């Protein structure tokens, strides 16, 4: 297995929005991409807490990252378009870094189903989760 296959974070590039939000990519022990977002005025909602939309944006980015890496590892070159997302907010987001990792439940020919979880100081205590459905299509020629 090449370095690129082990470390999934190199198979996905963060878009401008993610960089503007101060998101960074790392890899977990399996090489799956973890997206991290720092707390700051840019991600603050209710004073002293993470904004629900910022958490949503992070979850979605981790969903994109997980699916991109999954497709790349399987040698699939497909365009991904989000169809829908449903976010559950489980706990208040504290003024600390927040992490998110996605899991591809299924990637078929036309649709991929992804689940994502976000946590802060304790991986076992999620602050938010979501499911996302993606439409897969052949790259534009």
């Amino acid at each position: 297995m090449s370095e690129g296959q082990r470390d999934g974070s190199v198979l996905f590039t963060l878009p401008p929005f993610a960089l503007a939000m101060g998101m960074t990519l790392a890899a977990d022990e399996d090489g799956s991409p973890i997206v991290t977002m720092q707390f700051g005025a840019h991600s603050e909602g209710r004073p002293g807490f993470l904004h629900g939309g910022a958490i949503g944006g992070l979850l979605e980015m981790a969903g994109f990252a997980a699916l991109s890496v999954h497709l790349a590892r399987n040698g699939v070159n497909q365009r991904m378009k989000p169809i829908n997302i449903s976010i559950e907010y489980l706990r208040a987001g504290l003024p600390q870094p927040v992490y998110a990792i996605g899991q591809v439940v299924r990637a078929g020919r036309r649709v991929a189903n992804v689940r994502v979880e976000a946590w802060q100081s304790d991986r076992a205590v999620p602050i938010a989760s979501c499911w996302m459905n993606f439409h897969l299509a052949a790259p534009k020629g």
Partner: protein
Amino acid sequence: MAEHEPFTWRKQGPFDPAVAGELLSKLGHGGFLGMRYGDHGPDWFEAELPWREDLVGAGNKGVLASGPIISLFDNCTSMAIWTRRGCFVPHVTLDLRIDYVRAAVPGRSVIARAECYQLRGDLAFVRALAHDGDMADPLAHAAAIFMVLGDSE
């Protein structure tokens, strides 16, 4: 947190959506994204997210990321609740679902309009749509549920 004193609309008195909307465009995440107050009615609130190059998403080609649209929905749905209540009651987002009907057109502002259609106990139910100029041709629909903040939070 002293730097958040501009949240004067948290204090007593009726909720003024236009004033709150102005604060939305200055503070925190909404300020960072450059959201702007649009309009409101008895139970609805509208705001705009101007297109910006640094808010472009994955697959990019100038298309706004869906992340800022989630934030726009989160803010507008929240504001619609206070607009309908007529007063500010702190709450948290319990659940937010978004259906992306089509991609946003590069360079165009995204406008979201949210309507609070039900208040029941400590729950508030909201629906919303986002468009980029023509409300009859939306780019996303959303449904959200908020819960009044409990003592433990």
